């Protein structure tokens, strides 16, 4: 998809988030791990929000998790390219951190979606430079 045609918000990386966005371009979901308390965290920043350690490193997440909660947006912001309604999920990664994403491959029907359903990451290029991580139900 060409950069000029995408009408939704396009993330602009900062120095501390760039490794994450470089990762999604390569189909990798990069999160951070604290070398002191050994907990993972997200969103990217150069300190552990659990223990304030700066001894942190980037690791590739498994890309698996579960749907902690969700909403179905019927009134998206003006210009948002996905037709409404669509599902916005609060994904809990197997490593622990939560992140917001879209849940794709499901009908936007509360009867068809359940909290705690297993998910796995998929990657969607929105421009030539930016790729979003989205999540789909794990089959079977």
């Amino acid at each position, binding site marked *: 998809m060409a950069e000029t045609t995408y009408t939704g918000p396009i*993330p602009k990386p900062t120095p501390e988030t760039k490794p994450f966005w470089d990762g999604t371009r390569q189909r990798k979901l990069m999160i951070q791990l604290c070398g002191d308390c050994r907990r993972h965290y997200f*969103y990217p920043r150069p300190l552990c929000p659990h223990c304030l350690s700066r001894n942190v490193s980037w690791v590739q997440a498994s890309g698996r998790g579960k749907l902690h909660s969700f909403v179905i947006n019927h009134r998206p912001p003006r210009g948002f390219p996905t037709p409404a309604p669509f599902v916005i999920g609060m994904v809990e990664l197997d490593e622990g951190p*939560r992140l917001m994403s879209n849940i794709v491959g499901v009908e936007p029907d509360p009867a068809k979606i*359940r909290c705690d359903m297993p998910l796995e990451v998929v990657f969607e290029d929105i421009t030539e430079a930016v790729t979003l991580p989205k999540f789909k139900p794990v089959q079977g």
Partner: protein
Amino acid sequence: MADCGNLRGTAAIAGVAESDEMGRLPHKSSLQLHMEATHNALADAGLKKGDIDAVFTSGRNMANDLPEYLGIRPRFVGGTQVGGCSFILHVEHAMAAINAGLCEVALITHGESGYSRIAMPAPRWGEDSTNNQFELPYGSSGPATGYGFLATRHMHEYGTTSAQLAEVAVATRKWAALNPKAYVRDPLTLDDVLGSRMICWPFHLLDCCLVTDAGGAAIVTSAERARDLPKKPVYVLGTGECVTHQMVSQMPSFTTWDAARVAGERAFRMSGVKHADIDVAEFYDAFTIVPMLALEELGFCKKGESGPFVSGQRTAPGGDFPMNTNGGGLSYTHTGMYGIFTIIEAVRQLRGECGPRQVPDAKVAICHGTGGVWSAAATMIVSTEH
């Protein structure tokens, strides 16, 4: 870690007021709405502009804009902006500053052209903000999205239903019908709420607050000075505040509202008031789920039991838990930052000024607000009895 200090009852709210008009006001700027509320609150307090030595307000640049617009030179300034509950935090901060001897008469003011957008700040999130990187790309519509995650998880964990959420909207509308200043006053049924169009599941349109233009202000001074003023002082017995996150995806829990629990615990500890002593509750209702979580985290019901608690119109006029007696953000007014209006209504209830919506013999009131997307919380317990 420090906790309550010796602040209980040392400050009082001496004056409160809204702007001259509320609703849809394309002929007034956000600063004019501040000005009208300030003007009216000073008159209510029996004070003059020259008495004000501290200004507390919220919003980008507002702590500069407002003194300029009003021609006030405050010697103590509070610009804490944690969202809609900020004005409840301002009461705590004013009380602390008054006790420290840094000021004596504090103006807390809000004005927002939330609907008409006259003289409002530009949109908030830059391209490289965390919001624009980690939430907005997924089509988040801000509050309606963020508040919904907790409602969905609450339904999953506790069996809370859309009909229970709708009970709050219906009960609040009954209060609005008794308030001539309320923006919408027509009767509402549970079916009306459940049949209203979907905004962001699980929220229907009538689960969501209004979007209006209005201002509100309060004057806080020492308990001693308040006793010399014309209106009955409303003493600040307890306050609490907490912030946990900015983006909802960073919220520590989606089944508990930790900031509210922390704020509420301190407010109750400081005040020495028991839950059974509370006569009237003014709980920020950006969405129907929000006052329900406040009921749980402030200890009025057990975790997960707010659905049954609000059922049977318990919070409506004539119910045993009078809540949001002005008609709330759902039916009276919601500019974008509703917190100041919880203070105004609590003071009026305790003074006995509320006419047909007056809660009989109201002596103790509780205000509680949310800021951001469950990001901040503030609680305040007030009484006409010291």
